[in-house]
């Protein structure tokens, strides 16, 4: 019995992992242009980026998932609906790129002006200054807030069940209806706990690796 439940839950957890990994990869990338947009000297672009971040951070992720899944069909009749998983991924990626962009922005804006100026007086190009001087300092600064946000993402994947994606909580809950068992649902917590534990160790290693220098 225990073994069967564990196998079933692993099936659900594979969906959880899929949402987690794809969201992480795409929103880490997409967060960068949004961060640069929010810092742009070109006002309309800055306004656009910041409004986007405000809306995304100002509304629940659960609602965003619902809107992405049901919204298109309400606006254009006859449009073929997105798959449940695709809707979840789109909403998650948009949501997390907004949060990541703010972490990037904080990290970049925390670099002292003197670092740029010192590099400028040494004849470096803007590109060289960003990649050779600023980037690693930003990475070091954002590892702790990033770790936090990524752990939150692990647990946010459970929101996918609102559009019936069969992630681990959904699977655990099914046992209540089908076999009147409550403990599988509690058991899902172990999966999250172990996975977050592994991630915490990885983040710790990264922080350790960057410990050889200090930023002001």
């Amino acid at each position: 019995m225990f073994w069967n439940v564990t196998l079933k839950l692993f099936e659900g957890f594979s969906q959880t992992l899929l949402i987690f990994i794809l969201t992480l990869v795409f929103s880490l990338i997409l967060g960068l242009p949004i961060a640069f947009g929010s810092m742009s000297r070109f006002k309309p672009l800055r306004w656009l980026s910041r409004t986007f971040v405000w809306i995304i951070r100002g509304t629940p992720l659960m609602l965003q998932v619902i809107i992405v899944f049901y919204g298109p069909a309400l606006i254009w009749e006859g449009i073929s609906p997105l798959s449940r998983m695709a809707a979840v991924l789109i909403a998650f990626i948009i949501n997390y790129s907004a949060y990541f962009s703010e972490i990037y922005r904080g990290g970049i804006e925390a670099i002292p002006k003197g670092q740029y100026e010192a590099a400028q007086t040494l004849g470096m190009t803007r590109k060289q200054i960003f990649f050779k001087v600023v980037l690693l300092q930003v990475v070091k600064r954002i590892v702790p807030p990033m770790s936090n946000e990524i752990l939150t993402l692990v647990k946010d994947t459970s929101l996918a069940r609102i559009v019936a994606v069969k992630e681990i909580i959904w699977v655990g809950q099914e046992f209540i209806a089908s076999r009147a068992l409550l403990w599988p649902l509690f058991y899902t917590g172990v999966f999250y706990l172990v996975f977050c534990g592994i991630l915490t160790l990885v983040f710790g290693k990264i922080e350790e690796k960057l410990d050889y220098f200090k930023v002001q």
Partner: protein
Amino acid sequence: MAEKENPILEVKNLSKSFGKVEVFSDICFAIEKGSAMAVIGSSGSGKTTLLRCLNFLETPEHGQIVVKGNCLFDADDSSTQQEKDIRHKRLHFGLVFQSFNLFPQYSAFRNVTLASELLAKEQPGYSSNRGRLIKEIQERAEYLLGQVGLSDKLNNYPHELSGGQQQRVAIARALAVNPDILCFDEPTSALDPELTGEVLKVIKSLADLNTTMLIVTHEMSFARDVADTVAFMDAGSIVEQGPPSQVISNPKQARTRQFLERYLGNN
């Protein structure tokens, strides 16, 4: 006085404002190759902004900056202000900051070699001469760090060094790209009195090697020892300039005397 060779740096009628606030106006001076000029004056008199203008970190509203007879900047000629040229123009000047601004993720040695290596990549034929060029850059970095007395700290990171040592690395870093004029922006203001001496000693040794320098400082006795010319700035203009024996020891202007009395009173 007979004209010697052309000065390496000529600053002509330079003015700078931030919005409506005038920082300095109509600044004129010249520096001979191999000589050192000290700029003294109270805080807010425009000294730092002047250095920042020379290093193209700020853009003056009026005036010209001429180095070795070439006009690098003319406020009335926008062709001298093109973004793409500024990077190379900056290399005529080196700047040592009050707060060092070393790159924290690089060792002392790498701080000194980084910019030179990046500049070497732009040279034609870099790929075929790569090994030799890198070796030259590294040898020069070792030499420069030796010159500032840090041969034993090549592999230390900035946070492992004292303020005085960090500032000496910053001096070596600025020298690495061979600037025509090395500028110092209150190089010892962020240091304990104990650490000030070691930095001043290094600057003095550079003066003895005829490095062309422009030094903004609050250290009067140092300015007197090192500088060939001293300029006293007050409220955005140069009130008095001349040899230290005049400006510091025997000032002609009442305003200079007043300023120095306050300083020497503290010493």
